[in-house]
């Protein structure tokens, strides 16, 4: 883990509220890892690392003042990372993701041959070379007719996680979890997840967890 200051090269809009930010510098990281980035807000925010057009990149869903500042205003971004554990599994897998994870998808595709399914609530504005479904119903159809894979990695909203778990439970399915994070390094205990094996922390034990380890209610 290091402390760094990244320089923004450009932002690309990919759907109604999500942008990709490309950086000039590189960081060494494993697919699945994230960084904590500083904004004008009081607490740094986590972003999963990835690539876009071969550059270091993150995807940012604009939710408020901090994310808007990242996308629109700043050129320099301070942060620390990479954090959390990388994800690597043998066999043929599929990434089932929301548009906020497209950069992470590229990090995986650089290392392993995976299929990708993107579920977006609104149309995706950039050309993608993998399956994209728009809207809940289409997504449901697609999930219920998926072929067999050795593993599945889901990274998206809580509702996307639920739908995937309902259809894929019993299989080798993993979830990349999002929780509010204060520190990203296991100090503050804000990112707890109650698992069947006790309290875990998304920042240090995750961010990727096996579906059958999580408590689904």
């Amino acid at each position, binding site marked *: *883990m290091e402390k760094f200051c990244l320089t923004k090269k450009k932002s690309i809009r990919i759907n109604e509220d999500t942008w990709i930010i490309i950086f000039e510098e590189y960081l060494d990281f494993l697919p699945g890892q994230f960084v904590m980035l500083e904004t004008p807000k009081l*607490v740094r925010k986590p972003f999963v690392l990835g690539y876009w057009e071969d550059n270091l990149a993150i995807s940012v869903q604009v939710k408020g003042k901090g994310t808007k500042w990242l996308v629109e205003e700043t050129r320099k971004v301070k942060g620390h990372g990479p954090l959390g554990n990388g994800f690597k599994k043998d066999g043929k897998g599929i990434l089932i993701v929301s548009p906020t994870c497209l950069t992470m998808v590229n990090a995986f595709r650089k290392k392993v041959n995976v299929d990708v399914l993107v579920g977006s609530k609104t149309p995706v504005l950039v050309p993608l070379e993998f399956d994209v479904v728009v809207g809940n119903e289409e997504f449901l159809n697609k999930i219920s007719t998926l072929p067999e894979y050795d593993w599945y990695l889901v990274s998206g909203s809580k509702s996307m996680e639920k739908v995937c778990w309902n259809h894929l439970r019993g299989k080798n399915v993993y979830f990349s979890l999002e929780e509010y994070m204060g*520190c990203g*390094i296991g*100090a*503050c*205990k*804000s990112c*707890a997840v109650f698992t069947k094996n006790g309290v875990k922390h998304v920042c240090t034990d995750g961010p990727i967890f096996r579906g059958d380890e999580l408590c689904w209610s």
Partner: protein
Amino acid sequence: MLELSPPLVLLSGPTGFGEYLKLVDPKYVGGVILKTVTLHPKKGNPTPRMADGDFYVINRIGLENPGIHAFIRQIPQLSIPTIASLGGDSFEEYLEVSRIFKEVSERFCGVEYNFSCPNVKEGGLSIVEDTNRWKNLLNEIRTILPNTFLIAKVGIEGVFVEKAAKIVVDSGWNGITLVNTVRGLHFERGHMILGGLSGPLLKPIALRAVYEVRKMYPDLFIIASGGVYSVKDAEEFLNVGANVVGVGSALFKNPEIVEEIGRYLLEVKG
């Protein structure tokens, strides 16, 4: 007296069990106060456990910790002076945790007792409400740990800080940490988060508390806790009489803040 150089500590909670030292150069930090440990392990509250507003951070971690026995088995080996933090759900638990802690007390330069956590149902804040019983508790802890540097961490709720400080001094304790988080309510996308408020909004409250207690007790050891985000903030706390300045929520903003304050304090205070 506890001499920390620079007079800057990382506060209990945001620092964890020292994990935060991965992000700051220890030479700029005088000491670390570890996360509060209770008699039994606590798994803490469900998420969301934290949120940030424009001028505050709010948390409801719920004292997640492994319990005193597990803590003692794996005391973090840090390169700078370390203060333990102890808490409990009842008077009896505070005493029991103190007895168990006694066997390792020499490995710490002091122990801070958390009498002010707003995020647990029993103990925490409510422990100070019955001031007579609280006073007895402080006396009993002093008897269990006769030679330990004892610091009481109190907030501004439950009892006036002036009254709390008098009880702390009369019980033969060495120091006081002012203040802890204050109970607050934050709406996050329509959902209520009830927790303890820290960060910039807490600073004037903490400054006033330090100011009032210093007026009463020129020699009491005071650790300031509340909204330190800059060299200027640290200076103000020293001006009103703090011996040591603590940083908590600022750790979530930028570790360089800590180094900057530490560097400054080393230059002017040594």
